[in-house]
């Protein structure tokens, strides 16, 4: 995707960061990783807002905007 000029990122929680990196290594990939606090599931809207803001900030950084 990056070769086509698209921002390709993986958003993961901090708990699953090692798993994502290990999976990427197995596929010889170097993912652009945006890490947010764990968990994401089971949160109410206010609790989720922090994760959304962190992910969005990381995404903007990756997109250069």
């Amino acid at each position, binding site marked *: 995707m990056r070769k086509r000029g698209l921002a390709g990122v993986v958003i993961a929680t901090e708990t699953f960061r*090692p*798993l994502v990196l*290990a*999976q990427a290594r197995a596929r010889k990939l170097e993912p652009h990783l945006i890490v947010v606090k764990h968990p994401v599931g089971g949160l109410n809207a206010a609790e989720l807002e922090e994760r959304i803001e962190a992910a969005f900030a990381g995404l903007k950084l990756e997109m250069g905007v």
Partner: protein
Amino acid sequence: MPDAEVLDIPDMDPDAWADYVEQQGWTDGLPLVPPTEAAVARMVEGARGDNEPVPPITPRLMTPTIRSLAANAVMAGCRPEYFPVVLAALRGVLVADYNLHGTLATTHSCAPMVMINGPLRKTLNVNCGSNCFGQGWRANAAIGRALQLILNNVGGAKPAVMDRLTFGSPAKYTFCFGENEEESPFAPYHVRQGFAADESVATVISSEPNHNLNDHGSTSGIDLLTTFAGGIASPAANNISAKGPFFIVFGPEHAATLARDNWTVEAIQQFLFDKARVPLSEVSAENRYRYETGGNFPENGAFKVAPTPEDIHVAVAGGPGKHSAWIPSFGGTAAISVRIKPPAAA
């Protein structure tokens, strides 16, 4: 030239060996049988003539050699004659629809269930009767354990690192049994899947351990099925949120009652599909949204627990007693049956 596949490990006593394999991260927690070159060679011989390559094993995506697989079968305690069953089960979990990657990366408590059909059950002394999901039979214990060790040591599914189950389950050590074809009133499972009765077959599915279905009171097939439909209609099982199959394993006594009342496998599947429903009153609004997003929409005020009647897989196993078993699955998986290749003649 040194053999890259052979580790030169000095002789050590059993206690030191148990500590060594623990330090290496090779064990499931229990001591392992030392995979000496001679023992591995005997195991490889158990699959003589099987030249079909085994695909790369997720998550590490290493293409296994036959000796690496044999070494894990030795460590699990397999006899060489078990090895073709281990290979068939492994090939089953590597079929794309089984979804090995998803079943390892998930937090759900799933493990590979292995059910064996056909004449090899008897040859290998696979327990199909009393306590078939439990301890006491080397074939059941070692075949399931070998599959797990291969996933751990060759595939790289290290517990709590790459294998991320919240709880795991006892089935992660081993979950292997045979269908009790001799006491089943129905055609054997593998025959219903299109195999010949004289073929031996390993069937795998990513599942939870067995959940007991107790009915000592009912005396008719329809009453038994009504009990079971209630037992499997759970709003908290993966099968409601992720489309997928599961197993109902009837104990021989329940199976006999069903057959006496003229219940066919197809009729049982249809009855359970129609009656095992989770009412909307037991489902939160958030979960309803999740299930519907996944394609499971309520019908007549209730959710299905299987996409189709055929996703309710029926088998017979176990011994005397008024019990049957529900084996809930990961959901996003499939039941895969693979023919076990007998070793070629020397």
